[in-house]
């Protein structure tokens, strides 16, 4: 009897261990072609099992002995809509599932593969957007496709001007955004004084934007996070692409090296010979060019994936007007990252990375025999590690640890006197823990805590983060996000002239800026449209700083309280709506944002609250794309409330205290800060692309028109009192600009 019982028990245990076989095949819904490298997340409903998987070259995953039970399966692949389904696996009954994914040129909330497997931000994160390379290319641009400028087509995201890459995200200023390239900070992501970003469309695979309440793995900024991913090369053989536009040439080469993969991409403007030809002593047009190079090498040889990537970009502008007047100006970034990711068990993954990001700019000028030099540099070396553990019961735990060593230097001399010679080498340690917990099939929670120690001022910071998702029905989901953020590095920028940007740490003479963000939203996914989302956000800010324009020109002290006006407060509140459709004849989105942003500084506007220039009451974005025969047509329309500006309110007579002389026509008296508005901004851009053959090679022709109806959008107002009547001159932004380009593949 006892032997029989034992036998039965052993049989039962063996049967339990055997479970059932599961085969999942992922195919393209359009042509049933298998999709290799699709990412699957198989999760038992009770949370006891969670497996990240990937399809093989036949688009298959074969699993034997999977425990019986109810499962959730998420399937994602780049360029396709994600698929979510539930199924029941019965003991000893093999199950074959075919997942047909729908191709999508406008994948916004596409799941993105990260070091830990599948991006859970789609499910958990409010205000989260991803765009892949194809989607970015489809957004009409100006002269050069630019991922940062493309983001301006999204609701809640706007720019200072047509020639600025600085982003205003949900009422935040550009200095409150963390800009990353594969997780490494890029400190000045602009070319051409802000007209273009440093990110070459050829070299990037996609980007992820957290508009607010971002998770604990990120830190250091009060507002948003933009993480741009390098291209993930996977060609079967070496291939190349060449592209030319009106101002620049681009090249991309990628290929395999045994099991390894690599790519190199670069571009350079070629305006300088033309500028040189136009230059005369009477009209000393500056010489200008920029270039950048991206490269990546990825190898699976060391028991995991090892990736080395590098970005180097530089802008140079110079003019030699005469013997007493010339200037040279240069700025650029060099970013390097070495990362190793590997599984450390069935449920544990590890990532180790070492990165370096250097930004420098320098001005060497002489104006009418007066010399002026500014040099600044920021070097950041960061070592970090991360563990992701899936212990079951619906939990996904992450632990990250790292440290950054910064080196700031800033020197300034005017008229051969060195007024500033600043050096600082602070360091920062950070740790974060995060639990992504699927409480039940309809409810998920992400709890995070980021701790920071900054040796400058001996500061300890704790930043809790929270995200909650609750399915209210099959089509309707509720989301909530919140977090506390501190900012130590402060960008000093002039958006019309980003070449001179520099960063300074907020040292112990001032408090760190703090924000508390909350976002509440609903997502509706009916069958006639992909997504209808509505979010309400509120961002409360304390201890803000703003560059002090009134300090003496030769100030030598460079502490935070000397350089900045400190102690500012503010808020950004608003509501954002988005309708998105990724299938059918027309694809695209419609977005609307209602926003209120205010700031208060004791030393500005007589201490009264004011609207900063990134306050936008209404913001409408429409993006439409369609296929018409061989042509891929796109159109983007944007409307925004006019930017706030300070108008002139009166003229007055006041003698110059230096000369004792009064201007014949008086001076202009400014009104309250930003108490007027420029006219509403609106613009329509269109693009057309079609495949062609050039020199017997596959190629693509691209035509774009920026500002199709030549709207003269106002940029700023300038008041001059040289004449008897104050003249108010409106300076306009870019007019209609057509551009064409060709990309050819080898």
């Amino acid at each position, binding site marked *: 009897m006892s032997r029989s019982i034992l036998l039965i028990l052993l049989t039962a245990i063996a049967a339990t261990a055997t479970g059932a076989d599961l085969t999942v095949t992922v195919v393209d819904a359009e042509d049933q072609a298998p999709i290799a490298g699709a990412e699957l997340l198989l999760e038992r409903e009770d949370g006891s099992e969670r497996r990240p998987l990937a399809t093989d070259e036949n688009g298959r995953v074969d699993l034997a002995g999977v425990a019986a039970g109810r499962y959730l399966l998420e399937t994602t692949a780049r360029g396709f809509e994600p698929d979510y389904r539930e199924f029941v696996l019965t003991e000893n009954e093999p199950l074959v599932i075919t997942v047909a994914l729908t191709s999508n040129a406008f994948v916004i909330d596409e799941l993105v593969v990260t070091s830990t497997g599948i991006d859970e931000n789609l499910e958990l994160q409010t205000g989260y957007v991803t765009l892949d390379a194809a989607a970015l290319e489809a957004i009409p641009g100006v002269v050069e496709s630019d991922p940062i400028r493309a983001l301006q087509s999204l609701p809640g995201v706007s720019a*200072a001007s047509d020639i600025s890459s600085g982003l205003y995200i949900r009422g935040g200023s550009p200095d409150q955004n963390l800009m990353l390239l594969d997780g490494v900070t890029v400190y000045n992501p602009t070319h051409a004084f802000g007209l273009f970003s440093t990110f070459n469309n050829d070299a990037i695979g996609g980007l992820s934007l957290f508009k607010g309440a971002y998770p604990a793995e990120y830190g250091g900024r009060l507002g948003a996070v933009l993480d741009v991913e390098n291209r993930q090369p996977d060609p079967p053989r070496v291939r190349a692409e060449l592209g030319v536009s009106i101002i620049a040439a681009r090249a991309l080469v990628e290929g395999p090296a045994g099991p390894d993969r690599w790519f190199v991409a670069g571009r350079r403007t070629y305006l300088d010979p033309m500028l040189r030809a136009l230059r005369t*002593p009477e*009209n*000393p047009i500056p010489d200008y060019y920029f270039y950048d190079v991206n490269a990546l090498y990825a190898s699976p040889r060391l028991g995991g994936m090892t990736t080395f990537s590098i970005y180097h970009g530089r802008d140079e502008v110079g003019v030699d*007007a005469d013997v*007493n007047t010339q200037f040279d100006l240069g700025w650029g970034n060099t970013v390097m990252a070495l990362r190793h990711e590997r599984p450390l068990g069935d449920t544990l993954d590890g990532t180790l990375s070492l990165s370096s990001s250097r930004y420098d700019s320098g001005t060497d000028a002489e104006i*009418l*025999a*007066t010399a002026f030099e500014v040099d600044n540099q920021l070097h950041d070396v960061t070592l970090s590690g991360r563990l992701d553990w899936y212990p079951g019961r619906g939990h996904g735990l992450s632990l990250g640890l790292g440290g950054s060593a910064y080196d700031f230097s800033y020197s300034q001399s005017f*008229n051969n006197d060195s007024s500033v010679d600043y050096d600082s080498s602070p360091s920062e340690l950070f740790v974060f823990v995060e639990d992504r917990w699927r409480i039940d099939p309809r409810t998920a929670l992400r709890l995070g805590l980021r701790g920071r120690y900054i040796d400058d001022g001996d500061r300890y910071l704790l930043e809790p983060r929270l995200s909650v998702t609750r399915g209210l029905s099959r089509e309707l989901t509720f989301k909530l996000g919140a977090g506390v953020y501190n900012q130590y590095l402060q960008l000093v920028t*002039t958006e*019309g002239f980003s070449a001179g940007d520099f960063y300074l740490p907020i040292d112990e003479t001032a408090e760190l800026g703090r924000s508390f963000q909350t976002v509440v939203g609903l997502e509706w996914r009916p069958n*006639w449209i992909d997504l209808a989302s509505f979010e309400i956000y509120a961002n409360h800010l304390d201890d803000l700083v703003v560059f002090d*324009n*009134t*300090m*003496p*020109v030769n*100030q030598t002290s460079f502490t935070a309280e000397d350089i900045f006006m400190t102690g500012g407060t503010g808020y950004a509140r608003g509501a954002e709506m988005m309708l998105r*459709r990724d299938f*059918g*004849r*027309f*694809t*695209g989105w419609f977005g609307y944002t209602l926003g209120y942003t205010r700031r208060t500084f004791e030393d500005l*506007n007589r201490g009264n609250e004011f609207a900063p*220039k990134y306050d936008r009451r209404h913001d409408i974005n*429409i993006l*439409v794309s369609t296929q018409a025969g061989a042509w891929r047509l796109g159109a983007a329309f944007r409307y925004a409330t006019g930017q*706030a500006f*300070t*108008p*002139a*309110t*009166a*003229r*007055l*007579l006041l*003698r110059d*205290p*230096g*000369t004792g002389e009064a201007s014949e026509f*008086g001076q*202009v*008296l*400014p*009104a309250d*800060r930003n108490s*007027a508005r420029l*006219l*509403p901004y609106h613009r329509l851009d269109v693009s057309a692309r079609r495949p062609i053959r050039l020199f017997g090679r596959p190629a693509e022709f691209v035509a774009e028109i920026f500002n199709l*109806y030549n709207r003269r959008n106002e940029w700023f*107002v*300038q*008041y001059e*009192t*040289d004449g008897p*009547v*104050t003249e*108010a001159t409106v300076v306009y932004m870019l007019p209609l600009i057509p551009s064409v380009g060709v990309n050819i593949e080898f």
Partner: protein
Amino acid sequence: MNSSRLAWLALIPLLAVAACDPQRDPDSLFAPGGVDIPVIDALLVVNQPLPRILLTRTQPPDQLFSFQEAAIREADVWLTSELGDTVQYTEVISGGIYDPQIWPALIVQPETTYHITVTTDRGERITASTTTPARFSVLDWVLVAGQGNPEDRSLRTFEEIGDLVYDAPENQLVYPQGVLETRLDDTPALGFQLAIFSLDPGSDFVIDPPFFDEEDFAALERSGSSPVFGAEEGMISLPWFAIYFEGRYKYKIQSLDLNTFDLVRSTPQGGFGIGGNAGDNFELPIYHVEGGIGLFGSVAVDSVGFRVLPAP
């Protein structure tokens, strides 16, 4: 709902915007709420007699500025000091201009607080105070070696030789050789302002940049002042880009009281500003005047003279 309908629906807001788009009304670039504010203009100079005071009102920004229309007439103006001085100012014939009624002239003392009280003909009361800066000394005016100047050279001063400074060999500056450096004593000061005066009207230009056109040359002025300089290193140098003409120059450096310091550092440079653009530097200046705006400030001054010669 099919795709075509969606696309057409998306066009509706666009068409609505285009239809409702307002045109810029030039008047909307001005906000005339700041008109008719009393403006006081008085600068006390240490070791000099009490200054003349101008009283005006702000005028509409987009109209011709008229001093006669702006002048505040028949105001009751009193100046007092912590030393017990009380001086009444009376309006001179041209209106809006007030002179102290005291003889002999009252000399402005360093590190002394002065108050002004103005009651206008409309009954408005305007008050302000200034504490004059300490006297300071220029230890040396030095043409520093470099840029073609072979060695450091001290300039002769008014105290030494009076107006002969303009002809002293040490005070002959060849454009743009060397840098003129002012070395100061360690008297505490909030900040300094430089001012330069070309004393020979009609003298030739010393600059000749090929990219200047006639309009550029015509816009150059024979006197000018600087933004605020600190003097943490005890030294301030004169930039050559302040010099456009040959001939004699008077070069003044003045230590600023709080009111003048705040006004100069917060006034948009050049009398114009940019509204709504990056930088946001078109901001209401810092005035320390109750019941109005303007300047009731004070400075302590030193100066030197030299002659600028064209490059050989």
